[in-house]
Every structure is written in structure tokens, then in C-alpha cells.
């Protein structure tokens, strides 16, 4: 069995999860504070990837990233970067596609913390940043782990978006889920079965981990 597609999927999922931890946590914090119409609209936009067919998202990203678009030509001119049919493009698309999986659970956990926790910390002379890292974040640790693991699993299983903007370039954009489709398309059912089994095993372990993290919580990890 060719391991490159599995390795590509793991690499894509790991990089996407890391990037989303960095941008998702501050975003979740911002959204968890007092809501306004502006925030509601932003949150709705961020949640769109959850409900949109991946091919729709992939199609619009393809248009955005294309070298003929404003963004695409600007990236190509200034950074010599093309986001279509490239691994970098897959990372950007995955970050957008998996964003709600990171932001939503963390935002909800932060919003459920009593406001008096942060208030008590402020009266003790602690800044907003210190309060966030020492009081708020440690108390949403379970949700944070769950969000990270679900983001990873979701990215591992990505298909429609990847196919639209990445195609199936061997060793570049042909991730495991694409490799399965490609194998079936070429009547190589044995090969498809091997990839499918490895993906099944990896995702199963991930879901078991999520349930282990949450075994003491009153709510299920997906609630």
C-alpha cells in the first residue's frame, strides 16, 4: 500500500488543527463576550461551512484562489503562492472548512462560565489577558481538547473541498479520502479497502479519545 495519501491527510489535519488552535481560541473568546448584531452575522458566516455542501464551499474557494481572481493574482504576484492544486491551498481551505468545529465548542464553554470568575480575577488586579490564560482557559480545557480532536478528525475525513481545489495530484493534494475515491474509480477495490480501513481505524481511535476526555462530563461531547 502507498502510504503517502495517509501521511498527507495526517499532515493536513495536524497543521490545520494547530492553526485553528491559534486563531480559533481568541475568536471563540471574542464571540463569547456580550453579543451584538455584528457578532451574530460573523458567527453565522463562520458556521456556514457546517451546513454548506463541501462542493459549494470548494467551488467558491476555487474561484477565490484562482490566479485570475483578485486574491489569487495578488498572492501569486507578491508571494509567488498559488492556492489552487497545492498543499498550501488545502491548508487554507481546511482551516475555513473546520473553523466551526474549533470555535463553536470553545465559545459555548466560555459563555457558560460564570461572569463572576473573570470579575473576581479583575478585582485581584489581574489583566484581561492574564485572566484569560490563568482562569478562563484552564476551566474550558475539556472543551478545548474535544474541539482540537474533532477538528483533526473532521479534516482527516475531508473530501469535497479538497477535490474541488486540490484535485488529486500524487504526493501533493491526493489525501487518503481522495485516494479511496480514485482507487474505486479505477476498480482497485483492494487498495480502496486498505485506505478505508486505515482511515476508519484512525478516526475510531480519535472518537474513543474524545469520549475518554469527556467521561466525567454530564453532557456528551457532541451536545
Amino acid at each position: 500500500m502507498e502510504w503517502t495519501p495517509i501521511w498527507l491527510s495526517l499532515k493536513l489535519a495536524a497543521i490545520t488543527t494547530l492553526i485553528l488552535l491559534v486563531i480559533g481560541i481568541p475568536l471563540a473568546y471574542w464571540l463569547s463576550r456580550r453579543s451584538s448584531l455584528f457578532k451574530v452575522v460573523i458567527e453565522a458566516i463562520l458556521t456556514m461551512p457546517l451546513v454548506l455542501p463541501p462542493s459549494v464551499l470548494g467551488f467558491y474557494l476555487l474561484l477565490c484562489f484562482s490566479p485570475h481572481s483578485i486574491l489569487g493574482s495578488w498572492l501569486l504576484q507578491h508571494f509567488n503562492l498559488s492556492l489552487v492544486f497545492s498543499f498550501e491551498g488545502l491548508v487554507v481551505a481546511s482551516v475555513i472548512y473546520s473553523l466551526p468545529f474549533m470555535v463553536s465548542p470553545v465559545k459555548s464553554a466560555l459563555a457558560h462560565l460564570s461572569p463572576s470568575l473573570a470579575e473576581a480575577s479583575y478585582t485581584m488586579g489581574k489583566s484581561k489577558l492574564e485572566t484569560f490564560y490563568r482562569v478562563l482557559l484552564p476551566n474550558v480545557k475539556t472543551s478545548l481538547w474535544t474541539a482540537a480532536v474533532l477538528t483533526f478528525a473532521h479534516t482527516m475525513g475531508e473530501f469535497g473541498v479538497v477535490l474541488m481545489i486540490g484535485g488529486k495530484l500524487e504526493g501533493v493534494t491526493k489525501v487518503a479520502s481522495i485516494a479511496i475515491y480514485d482507487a474505486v474509480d479505477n476498480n482497485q477495490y483492494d487498495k480502496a479497502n486498505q485506505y478505508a480501513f486505515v482511515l476508519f481505524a484512525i478516526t475510531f481511535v480519535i472518537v474513543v479519545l474524545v469520549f475518554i476526555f469527556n467521561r466525567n462530563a454530564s453532557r456528551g461531547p457532541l451536545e
Partner: protein
Amino acid sequence: MIEIAIRKKIKTYKGNRELQVDTVFPDQSVTKIYGPSGAGKTTFLKILAGLVVPEQGFITAEGEVWLDTANKINKPPQQRRVGFVFQDYALFPNMTVTEHLQFATKDHQLINRLLYIGRMENFSSQRPAHLSGGQQQRLAILRALALKPSLLLLDEAFSALDDELRENLITDLKILLTEFETTTLVVSHHAQETIGFADHSLKIDLE
């Protein structure tokens, strides 16, 4: 001395009402705050702590201006040195008893003394989830005291303590408050709770 004159709109089921307080708290006094439910007692404490900003207001503490809406002065809560005991205790689930006190002060001697006064030495490495209601409430009080606050705000802070424990705690509390030169406001629904503690009282009601 703490001087305060504030007006703050409060939404109630009867429509918009106004919280209006204009008073002076003498240095090191203990004032009992009372009034009907929903009259804005907690909001009043939060305004003093800088956690809520009123539409109009002026607050000075020992000659220092904390709030002056006319001149756009508003000291953040971080700079007011106000000890606040919240009604829901606001304990940090991730921290042990000792860590709560260390979050407020670096003075180890003070921490040990507070643990002794609150009868908490044996629970110092426990997290809030493993403490009883009374122990949680004591921890919230000790944490506020660890700041050596110039102003201490107690929101229903004795409700979970039995009579004996409360009386003992109040005796020790008075010694500390004198030592720290702290002015204290205590919100309470039960007259019994503040006997022998409060020397002034203030009724709060909406206009």
C-alpha cells in the same frame, strides 16, 4: 472615607427604574446594605468595584477619585484594591485553596494566617468541587481578604455558615479589617447575620 453619588438605569419586569445612591461611608466602618430583592444591591457593589459603570456617578476613596463620569475618569477594577465576595463565590474550579490565595497575594505568612482563621489548613490542597458549601464561602472571603483591601464588599457572604462558625469568623474578621484599615459593606437579607458586625446600615431601593 468613601463618598459616592451614582445614578444607574436598571431594567426590571416593571420597566426601567433608576438606582440612585448618594452617601458617605466612614473609614473602617462596617455598613449593612439591605433592601428588597432586585433593588440593585449587587449592582451597587459592582459599581463600587468598577465592574459596572453607571450613567452618572462620582466615587472617591480616601481622597482618590475612582469614578467621575463628568470628567470621564474611571479607574479599572484592577487598580481599586477592592475585595469582592460574590454571591456565587466565583471560585476558580482549576485552583486549589492555597492557589486561590496565591492568586491574590505573594505574602506566605498572610496566606497561612488566613488558612488558620478560616479553619481551612486541612483543605489547603483541595479544589472547590471537593469543598462543602460553608468551606467554599469561607475560601471566597479569605481570597478577598488576601488583597488587604481598602474596601471589602460582601454579597450575602455568610449565608452558608452556621451560627457558631459565623460568629467565630466575624470575630477574626474584625481584627483583620482593623489591621488592614478596611471599610466594609455587607449585603444581607437576614438581620441576624450582621449583628455584632455592622455598625451602620443603608437601605437600597429603586426610584
